[in-house]
């Protein structure tokens, strides 16, 4: 593969970075990333990955755009309200860079489709909005040995972790089990500021690019905590847990299984009345 004149021009500002160069750019153009969730995190991530020239981007989401998405899901416009999010992302992102082929996957990730989609891509980026999808993504990435960039946001805060399966801590090593439905509020219940999802989503794209380019130090074994109220970033050390159910020494999760939880959009009501747990 060699770069066209237009590509040399388009990517000139990153081509001159010694850590990237033509070699790195070609690497990106050959790379594929699957983004789970075309929402507040997936939108900025898709834009940055496509703009940087990641050649194949899969975007997976079963929802349609609503007016209440637009304050943070910055790819979608008023014209897209009512349309599936993945087609909106495909249309807008493709326009930004024709080098990026965007696959719109208008489905929810499930136990049955996860193996196929996860194995089809080089790296997975999880910007989903519910715990059942997040634990499914984590387990699939460990079982199929795919690097995973995990990011989440709520209120004014966020978290970020890059996972190189069986080399670094996975989501279950840090949080062994998802909370019961309603124990932790989602964006619909607790609210979220768009700039916070922008920060976390951009960092997710940044981590993905570093892993694909094999440059720098990935955010592995360090959970980055974004404190938006103070505009402060903190890190805590995490590590692979030998007792982890999926990547530990004696795993109990050897094949994918679904985790009971309703999706973000209907996770409120009865579950919130549960008196216990972080709320």
């Amino acid at each position, binding site marked *: 593969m060699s770069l066209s004149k237009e590509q040399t021009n388009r990517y000139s500002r990153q081509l001159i970075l010694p850590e990237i160069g033509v070699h790195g750019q070609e690497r990106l153009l050959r790379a594929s990333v699957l983004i789970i969730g075309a929402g507040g995190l*997936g939108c900025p991530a898709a834009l940055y990955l496509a703009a940087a020239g990641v050649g194949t981007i899969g975007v997976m989401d079963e929802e349609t755009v609503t007016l209440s998405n637009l304050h943070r899901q910055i790819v979608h416009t008023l014209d897209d309200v009512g349309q599936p999010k993945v087609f909106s992302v495909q249309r807008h992102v493709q326009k930004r860079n024709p080098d990026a082929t965007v696959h719109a996957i208008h489905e929810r990730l499930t136990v049955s489709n996860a193996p196929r989609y996860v194995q089809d891509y080089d790296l997975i980026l999880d910007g989903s909005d519910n715990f059942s999808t997040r634990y499914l993504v984590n387990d699939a990435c460990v079982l199929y040995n795919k690097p995973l960039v995990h990011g989440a946001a709520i209120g*004014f805060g966020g978290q970020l972790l890059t996972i190189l399966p069986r080399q670094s801590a996975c989501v279950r090593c840090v949080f*062994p089990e998802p909370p019961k439905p309603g124990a932790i509020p989602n964006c619909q219940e607790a609210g979220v500021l768009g700039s916070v999802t922008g920060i976390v989503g951009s960092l997710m794209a940044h981590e993905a690019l570093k892993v694909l380019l094999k440059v720098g130090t990935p955010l592995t074994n360090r959970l980055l905590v974004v404190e938006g109220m103070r505009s402060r970033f903190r890190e*805590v050390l995490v590590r692979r847990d030998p007792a982890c159910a999926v990547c530990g020494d004696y795993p109990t999760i050897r094949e994918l299984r679904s985790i009971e939880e309703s999706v973000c959009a209907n996770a409120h009501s009865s579950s919130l009345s549960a008196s216990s747990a*972080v709320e």
Partner: protein
Amino acid sequence: MAVTVRIPTPLQRLTQGQGEVSCDGKTVTELLGDLERRYPGIKERICDESGKLRRFVNIFVNEEDIRFLQGDQTAVKDGDEVSIIPAIAGG
């Protein structure tokens, strides 16, 4: 001087919106006891009925996960920073 406890966003409702509070104690257990005295109702969000840390919440003393130290018996001293970090899923 006391131990600084970082409260995650979802629990700040119980600390009158404060993201950082001061507590006393020689171990994480004592610290959580003092936290509960100052902000009633907060401990059950962090620990289950048997007093064990919930599986989706972690406590870090300075930067270290107490599960890899001495668990809830991990020692804390004046000036330490303790972070309570729950899993979040929003996107």
